[in-house]
């Protein structure tokens, strides 16, 4: 692969209590590309993506082995602070989850946490992130309204804008369209193509057409194991593993 | 951890320790003495001094620096002032025990300045990490929960230690005599049991009926809003107001009697029963009802055969919790149902009764005047055991029931 490798997962295994959810996963995600993770439900897609920003740390009884290197630094290193990792690796969740605050405050939140407090800089960041998330034109006149008043699709784009505001290097998306209608989904997919210019994106999806449409690389996960990983066209047109082929052609899943 | 972080944490630890000691001594459990106190303050001051050179170099923000200096000043002032304060602080014609007072004041000052200085001052100044902020906050929250549990634990242990020896067979089965100084509490025990039983008979059907109406027949609308508001007001109504209501309405009708008391207690527990029953009925999934309707059942048949049976444990929980409250209430029955000495085990609904909470009230009033100590502690223990026992039953029932859904 000609690109610089941004995220490199090495022998990653994960247990919830005594249940093994991920088994010896090894894959490399190139910089400024979209990597899609697909697979039947319960195969560990979300678990895998939540490892990248150490959100799994918050779950009681969760244990990991292996390494995840971002620009060569292991995020599971004992000296690395999970909170710092999350500032470098942004995440958008399955269900839109804006804070019950104003639109402006939703976006300013991450910056305030990071110590940016001047009104001028915040205004600029809010405007830029909303533009980047293609939401600026829809909300520019009502930044002080509650974010809960937006539609589901707008809320999800707000969540994306909120994540972009802290200038992450990697953007994780956990089935970002599963709670949205087709029009909102299309908008987010367009957005993803734009974001690719500046960010390394990892997207979990159960929608294979979506993976085929937007991603550059695709990983197929089954029962916690990585079955296949490669350029999207190759995975969809000439899958190497029989399991992948059966899933993609819709014989199970 | 970097050295300056460690030092900051150390200061926070010292501050918290002193706050804890201050509250502890205020609560009367221990007093560490002036010398040790002075040592603590001096340690705090020295730690701050160690930080000062760094703070000069790093003082980009004036505000932080001011906080820092203020905190150091307060600490040294306390170190100097506290032990040298006059032994008694005059307050009008009496005086306050000075050592305790100054200790409380100094610890209070620390409790207030500590976290503020820590987050407002040290934070930006030393690039205080998020973790240090978090550690200081958690420290204070842990102190809060300990301070909550301490007096409550104290109450329960005091009553158990003093009351348990008084629980004898004679105490449980004999009549009251000599203003409660001798004899037992048999009539009060029976009275309380009868009162609870009758209260259940009144509150159960009314509470469930109301809950069914609110959850099954009318979920919204103006009437429902009014009913809900009424239930909330009823829940908040002070028990003494219930007592006066009973005095004004039931006593003229039924006299001072078991029946009057039970009616009042029924009204008192009604909102608790309604609330819990509603929760239980609400937790029955809508699909189950729809399944029943789809088979051609009427609404009443659905409620009776499909909704109520699984909701029943939840409803019973509500009744149990309500009765736990009723068993311990004094104010509602003091003018409507009880006599202290004269009443015996009631022969009919219209006889007055004795009840444990009221008995305890009378014994407390005689405290110091008659030798009632042992019986009073024993009564308190018995009452506490009954009420907490009923409540524990209710809570266990609820936890078990919640797991099913």
């Amino acid at each position, binding site marked *: 692969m000609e690109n610089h490798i941004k995220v490199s997962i090495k022998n990653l295994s994960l247990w919830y209590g005594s249940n093994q959810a991920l088994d010896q996963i090894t894959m490399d995600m190139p910089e400024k590309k979209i990597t899609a993770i697909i697979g039947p439900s319960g195969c560990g897609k979300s678990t895998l993506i939540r490892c990248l920003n150490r959100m799994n740390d918050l779950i009681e009884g969760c244990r990991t082995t292996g390494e995840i290197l971002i620009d060569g630094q292991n995020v599971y290193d004992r000296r690395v602070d999970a909170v710092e990792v999350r500032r470098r690796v942004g995440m958008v969740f399955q269900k839109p989850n804006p804070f*019950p605050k104003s639109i402006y405050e939703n976006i300013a*939140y991450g910056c305030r946490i990071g110590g940016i407090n001047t009104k001028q800089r915040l205004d600029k960041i809010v405007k830029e992130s909303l533009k980047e998330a293609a939401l600026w034109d829809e909300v520019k006149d009502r930044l002080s309204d509650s974010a809960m008043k937006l539609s589901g699709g707008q809320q999800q784009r707000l969540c994306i804008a909120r994540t972009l505001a802290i200038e992450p290097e990697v953007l994780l998306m956990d089935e970002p369209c599963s709670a949205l209608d087709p029009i909102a989904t299309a908008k987010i997919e367009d957005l993803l193509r734009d974001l690719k210019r500046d960010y390394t994106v990892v997207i979990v999806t159960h929608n294979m057409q979506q993976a085929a449409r937007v991603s550059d690389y695709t990983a197929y996960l089954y029962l916690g194991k990585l079955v296949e990983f490669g350029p999207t066209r190759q995975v969809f047109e000439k899958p190497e593993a029989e399991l992948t082929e059966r899933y993609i052609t819709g014989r199970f899943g | 951890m970097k050295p300056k972080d460690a030092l900051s944490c150390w200061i926070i630890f010292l501050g918290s320790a002193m706050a804890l000691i201050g509250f502890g001594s205020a609560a009367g459990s221990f007093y560490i003495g002036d010398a040790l106190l002075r040592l603590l303050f001096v340690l705090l001051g020295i730690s701050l001094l160690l930080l000062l050179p760094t703070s000069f170099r790093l003082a980009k923000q004036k505000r932080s620096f001011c906080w820092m200096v203020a905190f150091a000043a307060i600490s040294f002032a306390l170190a100097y002032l506290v032990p040298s304060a006059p032994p008694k602080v005059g307050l009008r014609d009496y005086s306050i025990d000075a050592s305790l007072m100054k200790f409380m004041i100094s610890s209070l000052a620390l409790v207030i300045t500590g976290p503020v200085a820590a987050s407002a001052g040290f934070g930006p100044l030393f690039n205080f990490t998020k973790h240090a902020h978090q550690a200081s906050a958690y420290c204070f929250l842990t102190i809060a929960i300990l301070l909550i549990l301490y*007096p*409550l634990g104290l109450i329960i242990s005091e009553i158990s230690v003093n009351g348990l020896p008084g629980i004898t067979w004679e105490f449980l089965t004999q009549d009251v005599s000599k203003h409660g100084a001798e004899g037992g509490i048999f009539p009060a025990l029976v009275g309380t049991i009868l009162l609870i039983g009758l209260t259940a008979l009144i509150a159960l059907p009314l509470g469930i009926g109301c809950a069914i109406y609110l959850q099954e027949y009318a979920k919204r609308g103006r009437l429902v809003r009014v009913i809900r508001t009424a239930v909330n007001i009823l829940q*908040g109504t*002070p028990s003494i107001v219930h007592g*006066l209501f009973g*005095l004004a309405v039931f006593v003229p009708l039924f006299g001072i009697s078991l029946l009057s008391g039970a009616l009042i207690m029924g009204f008192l527990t009604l909102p608790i029963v309604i609330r819990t029953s509603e929760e239980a009925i609400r937790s029955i999934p809508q699909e189950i009802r729809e399944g029943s309707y789809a088979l051609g059942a009427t609404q009443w048949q659905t409620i009776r055969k499909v909704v109520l049976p699984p909701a029943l444990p939840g409803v019973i929980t509500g009744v149990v919790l309500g009765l736990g409250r009723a068993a311990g209430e*004094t104010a509602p029955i003091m003018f409507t149902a009880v006599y202290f000495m004269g009443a015996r085990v009631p022969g009919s609904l219209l006889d007055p009764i004795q009840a444990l909470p009221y008995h305890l009230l009378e014994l407390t009033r005689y405290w110091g005047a008659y030798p009632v100590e042992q019986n009073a502690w024993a009564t*308190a223990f018995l009452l506490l055991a009954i009420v907490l026992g009923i409540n524990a039953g209710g809570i266990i029932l609820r936890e078990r029931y919640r797991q099913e859904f």
Partner: protein
Amino acid sequence: MRLGRNTKEILIKNMFLGVAALSILIILFIFIFLFKEAFPAFREMGLSLFTSDWSASQGKFGINAAVFGSVAVTGIAMLIAVPLGIGGAIFLSEISPPRLRVFLKPVIELLAGIPSIVYGFIGVTVFVPYLAKTFDMLSGYSLLTGGIILGIMALPTIVSISDDALKAVPREIKEASLALGASKWETIKLVTFPSAISGVTAGCIMGIGRAIGETMAVMLVVGSVMRIPSPSFDVFETGSTITALIAGQMGEAWGMHTSVLFATAVILFLIVALLSVASDLLQARVEKKFRGG
């Protein structure tokens, strides 16, 4: 005669409606009957009820001292219970390990059930002598003692309700905050707590309502002296509260005296009802908040 199915259903429905409406009736009855008994006092005394002179034997019925006492005692109680209670609730819902929480939450709910007479008893036997010694007071009976006991009493209620409010904050928005690189404490401070603030306030208002209406625990320890201390902030003095006044004097009252006591009960009822409604409105706002709008 066999009723038609529909007739029967309607009958049953109306029967339940009747039962449900009973709560409204009880509230109305409480108010009407209290007011009826209190009416002579309101008519005869009018606004002179709100003076500071109380002497039942001379026919002087100014209830200001009791109102002052209730406010003072409740104020002290809230100074103790609100900060501690909120701190405890945050500990319980956000930072205690799940195993500890499973144990602590029922314990605190259980403690909320300790009868008020037991607090009163402990007040007389433990707190009064202790405070008398510590603060070198003439007797340990004072507004302060009442306030401290009420504060301890209100704690479990406030912790329990605030904990419910904090737990009701959806996990998703906490995760969102953490994913943006906030520490757990920043998340609590900036997201969880502000989101739960109306519920927490509702809990505190409920605590205030209960404290004002509490009888037994206060009556036994405030001293039941109908006098406003001077200077008025001197809470080391004995005093009385509305509830202590009613419970202490109703037994031997007659005529106008009784009526005045009922009048104070009407005032108490109105205050507490207002607080209930306020707490209710706040709680309704909580539910609305997370559903949008």
